[in-house]
């Protein structure tokens, strides 16, 4: 048995350390360390209710809109603030721009560059993969960054700025959109569709959304003959066996995403081993048995409706600032894969039925979701009525409690708030990567990444095993959200 400490683990959002016990050429055990604590929950106590909209987005610069949406919904839920149809559409659009940008940033800048690593130099595909995907130097990043910047112009119109907009409010969006601006949004979305259909898919979005099995996906990728970056990924995934790497067999959870009067684009629920069920939101707790926080006198996990545990850096039996959220006492995985499994898309369901939740399934679900959401964004722009209101100004109550649940790019994000006398008395946040990168709980059960890393192959002499890098990055971790 030998020990490896991988850190700073980069091309994740924020700082990360992964401790590995290695035995017989594979990971025997893993501990995931979130090394940064900033204390947003303590910071918010005593502040006026609406200050949450200023502070919460600054938890995270990559999913700041998700934080704004969760905060706005939690505040709205303390009373009964109506949401006009336009407000819902505008907030969905703002949120969707961030989410698809995040999925693509992960794909192009964080995940794909690992195929350019020297460890793969002997593979017949390496030269091509390195020319296309190498960090900073590769052609793909140079194609992607201008397209990403152009996509972000939607947020200039809809949200004023990004990250950390104040446009998202409990009653909708502060930014009314004129007819001329709607035309501009439509044109920007057309440009984005072009980038996706030319560079990412080399095919129509509708054709990608219709892929329904792993066999169909492989055949589609072969037909593209390495045209399009998604087909390149599918072929590289086949060549490196990513459908056998980073496997978990856990409950998948989604809070549901992009609500509307007709119901959410992706529904709320739980999915495990082919069976969907209702999500018992009130059965969510956080355990701090292995995290640097003071444990409760009875050692019981806490509901996010209760005050959070204060930090305690001196505990030797803990190893992370990340708490361990549990659903009904069990580990749950979250993210684009979980969201699409709950939503019932046939492609991720087939991938997981065959191989389990793997590196391949997580990446495929993320890229598939880009196509699904881009098409929905076009519908939302068409549905906006520039003559109708975008926001309702009903004031918040001075006292009450509320939960704001949404889906960030990386999975389920929840904010829980208590108000008294117009001020915040408790604010608790459970972020997607808090679920995925959770440490062990009191029963000793490891979190999803810790489970996914067990059995990962380690080559002779590897200090930063490439399999471990693929697995860790397949979750698209956001460490600044994880601890906050």
């Amino acid at each position: 048995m030998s020990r490896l400490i991988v850190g700073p683990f980069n091309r994740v959002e924020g700082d990360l350390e992964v401790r590995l016990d290695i035995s017989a050429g594979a990971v025997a055990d893993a501990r995931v360390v979130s090394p940064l604590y900033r204390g947003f929950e303590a910071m918010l106590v005593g502040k006026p209710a609406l200050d949450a909209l200023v502070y919460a987005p600054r938890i995270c610069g990559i999913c700041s809109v998700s934080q704004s949406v969760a905060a706005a919904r939690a505040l709205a839920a303390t009373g009964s603030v109506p949401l006009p149809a336009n407000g819902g559409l505008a907030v969905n659009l703002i949120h969707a721009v961030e989410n698809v940008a995040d999925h693509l940033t992960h794909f192009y800048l964080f995940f794909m560059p690992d195929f350019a690593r020297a460890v793969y130099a002997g593979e017949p595909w390496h030269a091509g993969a390195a020319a296309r995907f190498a960090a900073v130097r590769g052609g793909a990043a140079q194609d992607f960054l201008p397209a990403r910047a152009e996509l972000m112009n939607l947020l200039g119109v809809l949200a004023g700025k990004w990250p950390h907009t104040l446009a998202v409010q409990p009653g909708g969006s502060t930014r009314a959109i004129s007819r001329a601006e709607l035309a501009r949004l439509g044109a920007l979305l057309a440009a984005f569709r072009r980038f996706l259909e030319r560079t990412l898919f080399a095919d129509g979005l509708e054709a990608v959304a219709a892929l329904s099995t792993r066999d169909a996906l492989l055949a589609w990728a072969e037909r593209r003959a390495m045209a399009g970056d998604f087909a390149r990924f599918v072929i590289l995934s086949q060549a490196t066996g990513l459908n056998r790497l980073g496997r978990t067999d856990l409950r998948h959870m989604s809070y549901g995403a992009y609500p509307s009067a007709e119901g959410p684009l992706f529904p709320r629920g739980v999915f495990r081993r082919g069976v969907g069920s209702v999500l018992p939101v009130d059965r969510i707790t956080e355990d701090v048995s292995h995290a640097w926080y003071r444990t409760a006198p009875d050692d019981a996990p806490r509901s996010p409706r209760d005050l959070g545990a204060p930090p305690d850096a001196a505990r030797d039996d803990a190893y992370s600032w990340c708490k361990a959220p549990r659903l009904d006492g069990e580990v749950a995985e979250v993210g684009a894969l979980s969201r699409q499994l709950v939503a019932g898309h046939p492609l991720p369901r087939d991938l997981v039925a065959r191989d389990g939740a793997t590196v391949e399934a997580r990446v495929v679900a993320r890229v598939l979701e880009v196509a699904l959401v881009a098409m929905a964004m076009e519908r939302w722009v068409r549905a906006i009525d520039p003559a109708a209101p975008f926001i309702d100004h009903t004031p918040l109550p001075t006292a009450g409690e509320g939960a704001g649940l949404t889906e960030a790019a990386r999975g389920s994000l929840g904010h829980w708030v208590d108000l008294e006398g117009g001020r915040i008395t408790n604010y608790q946040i459970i972020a997607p990567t808090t679920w995925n990168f959770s440490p062990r709980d009191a029963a000793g059960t490891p979190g999803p990444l810790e489970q996914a890393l067990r059995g990962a192959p380690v080559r002779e002499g590897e200090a930063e095993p490439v399999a471990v890098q693929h697995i860790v990055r397949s979750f698209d971790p956001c460490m600044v959200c994880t601890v906050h």
Partner: protein
Amino acid sequence: MTAASEPARPLRLLWLQSGGCGGCTLSLLGAEKPDLLTALAAANVELLWHPSLSEATGGEARAILEAVAAGDQPVDILCLEGSVINGPGGTGRFHLMAGTGKPMRDWIAAIAQRAGYIVAVGSCAAFGGVTAAGGNEVEACGLAYDGTRAGGLLGAGFRSPRACRSSISPAAPSTPAGSPTRCCRSAPAR
């Protein structure tokens, strides 16, 4: 500043992150006309290491940072994103740099002694920013300011080897005005 008129040696840029949200980097990725990679090439800037962009990870990244801190690897520009974290009780344990068990504050302090120019990107790195809000539980400060007071990690009298104090630029937005991607732009309170 174009590549053609510059000496052949590129300017080596090292970017570090501590008590912040990563939004300064994400804002930088939104650079337009030209895009970020073109802008870096035009300015003849080479990324020595960036937490979100570079291939090097783990021991590879530690080796770069150790060489810089020891003075073996020259660095022209140090960018810090996020505040310097001193808590709890001055120990810096609220951010131990991954893989090293050493406070990130101490890494920043050591590397700052070696950099030609130092840029505090965003209001967190300049003043402590949002991370220092509320009761400042984590004892966050900026590189050259602690809130509105001169000082911070480097001290009021600090000068980087190739720059006057003013190069410790407070809260420069990473992308130009007019671009929709901007992080926390804030002016000093005095």
